[in-house]
């Protein structure tokens, strides 16, 4: 065999291999629903009823952080993804990049949602709906009531109280915790400006001085579950509810200063090749049955946005369903900073972590 023939055969074999890979990937995409999700949507208990009812497979890819999620989309081919879970305050970011499809209100149970979490200011742009809130909860004080004075947990002052020094963990997400720090010094999360950052930073430093660790989602749950920490700044039902059966002492409070309301939305991609199925999926997730399954997902629990979610009494009790009207009244939204302020908040957060 001459060198030229060998080279040609090598090139031919490579092209054939790429073609086979491309075809198999393409065919998998066409038949399935491809969803970019947070870990709560990967629970088979949530997906299987939808897959069985529609005879399709839901391929999920988990991500953390809107930036990482959008990066995945931008590195994919148009049409690779059908639906996405996204922070409600970040729906706008997807719309600005031309990623999302308009959703028709009359095809969604908007009227059944808790009014405070519809969040049209974030999920509707120029009067058109691009996202629907599916789940929400609070970044507040999560704690082990067997280890702390429960009355102390009614105030954000507990987070900087020397009494709890070394027994506190801080959830590692700067927006909600900066929101809590702002509330602790009497500021509203929706009105934060650069001028507020020095005072917020000072508050964060006090929290850090009292804290043992700054923990991500899994480490936050582990810290409370193992007793490594008794208080979690930024914790809430999303940490305590899922492990309430194993450890009924884990609870959360909505302090007198308030709590930060988190919410996640579902959006459909404009370039989806399977829009009918994508809409069906969104409708399923927003249905009473889908909402109950999503709310009690094995990854983390949270309040269903749909007030008619088919939760049983025990699940409602764990999620403190009946107290929601009061909680929602006292909660403030996530800080939704401009690009520039967001960067400055992140830098304040970095300084807080690096402080010794």
């Amino acid at each position, binding site marked *: 065999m001459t060198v030229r023939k060998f080279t040609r055969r090598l090139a031919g074999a490579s092209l054939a291999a790429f073609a086979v890979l491309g075809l198999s990937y393409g065919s998998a995409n066409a038949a399935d629903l491809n969803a970019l999700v947070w870990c709560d949507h990967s629970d088979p208990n949530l997906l299987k009823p939808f897959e069985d009812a529609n005879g399709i497979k839901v391929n999920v890819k988990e991500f953390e952080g809107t930036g990482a999620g959008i990066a995945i989309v931008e590195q994919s081919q148009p049409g690779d993804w059908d639906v996405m879970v996204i922070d409600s305050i970040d729906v706008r970011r997807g719309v600005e990049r031309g990623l999302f499809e308009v959703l028709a209100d009359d095809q969604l149970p908007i009227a059944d949602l808790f009014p405070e979490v519809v969040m049209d200011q974030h999920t509707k742009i120029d009067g058109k709906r691009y996202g629907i809130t599916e789940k929400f909860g609070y970044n507040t004080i999560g704690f082990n009531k067997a280890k702390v004075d429960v009355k102390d947990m009614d105030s954000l002052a507990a987070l900087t109280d020397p009494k709890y020094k070394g027994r506190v963990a801080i959830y590692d997400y700067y927006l909600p915790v900066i929101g809590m720090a702002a509330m602790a010094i009497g500021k509203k999360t929706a009105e934060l400006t650069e001028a507020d950052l020095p005072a917020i930073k000072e508050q964060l430093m006090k929290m850090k001085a009292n804290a*043992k660790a700054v923990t991500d989602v899994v*480490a936050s749950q582990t810290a409370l579950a193992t007793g490594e920490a008794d208080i979690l700044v930024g914790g809430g039902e999303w940490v305590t509810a899922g492990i309430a059966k194993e450890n009924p002492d884990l609870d959360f409070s909505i302090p007198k200063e308030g709590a930060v309301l988190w919410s996640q939305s579902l959006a459909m991609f404009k370039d989806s090749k399977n829009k009918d199925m994508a809409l069906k999926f969104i409708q399923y997730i927003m249905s009473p049955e889908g909402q109950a399954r999503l709310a009690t997902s094995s990854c983390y629990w949270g309040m269903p946005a749909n007030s008619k979610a088919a939760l049983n009494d025990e699940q409602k009790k764990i999620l403190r369903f009946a107290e929601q009207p009061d909680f929602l009244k006292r909660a403030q939204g996530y800080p939704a900073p401009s690009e520039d302020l967001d*960067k400055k908040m992140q830098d304040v957060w970095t300084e807080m972590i690096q402080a010794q």
Partner: protein
Amino acid sequence: MSASTNNRIGWASVTPALAWTLVFFVVPFVAMAAASLYTKGGDGLSLANYLQFFYNPSYWRALTNSLEVTAMVTVISVLLAYPFAWILAFIVPERWQRLALMLAVLPFWTSYVVRSYSWLLVLAEKGVINSTLVNIGILSEPIQLANTRAATVIGFVHFFVMLLTLTIFANLKQLSPNYRKAAADLGASPLQSFVHVILPLTLPGVMVGAFLTFVLAIGDYITPQILGGNNELLLPQLIMIQIGRRGDFASASALSIILMAVVSIAYFACARWLKIERA
């Protein structure tokens, strides 16, 4: 076969490797370098992402933290791995060496993430170490081991001692026993023989292992994130923060280039010092 045919075969053989390097290293690197010169939301080229690293103390500190942790890990791992490799090479009977080596690499068989979380549980206040020390009366109450720099170092050392043991063991086994015999014949004590003969001959192997440890540790995100408790940031964690919510790939790229520059400096320092390319 003519020289030109040889030349073509040579190029045909090396082309896949060159193409691989070009596509999967050179092109992404150039793209990353180019991305680092933009700013998120801004337009035009600038050095702002690099300047923020040098002007923002918390960014700069991420590098010094990384260097301190990596230096500690490398030194401790070498100090532990060398005697371990020595025992394996010269004291453990040859028929047991294979089993001993297999046991040495056992930690590699488990997931890196799972291993790190396991250490978190071991080092926790109610973990094995604290419970044992409290139960036998050495401690009156648990001390904080998890979520500290020490925990990060322990997690790293557990992994890299095994890696270094393998590289040093291979080096020791290649060493002819005649060196030790000759040193003894010339009146050297075992300690003198080790210090003046064996150690210098095995240093290139140690440096290769130490350099691998340095490179892998300084770029690692998982171990400090899980075991360090985010009480301080290392450079890879700072890079991840840029991407997580804001998707600031420009800033992350600049920090990654800085990380690569540090690794490159370490490489050139080691290569010149001990000629590791011949090890």
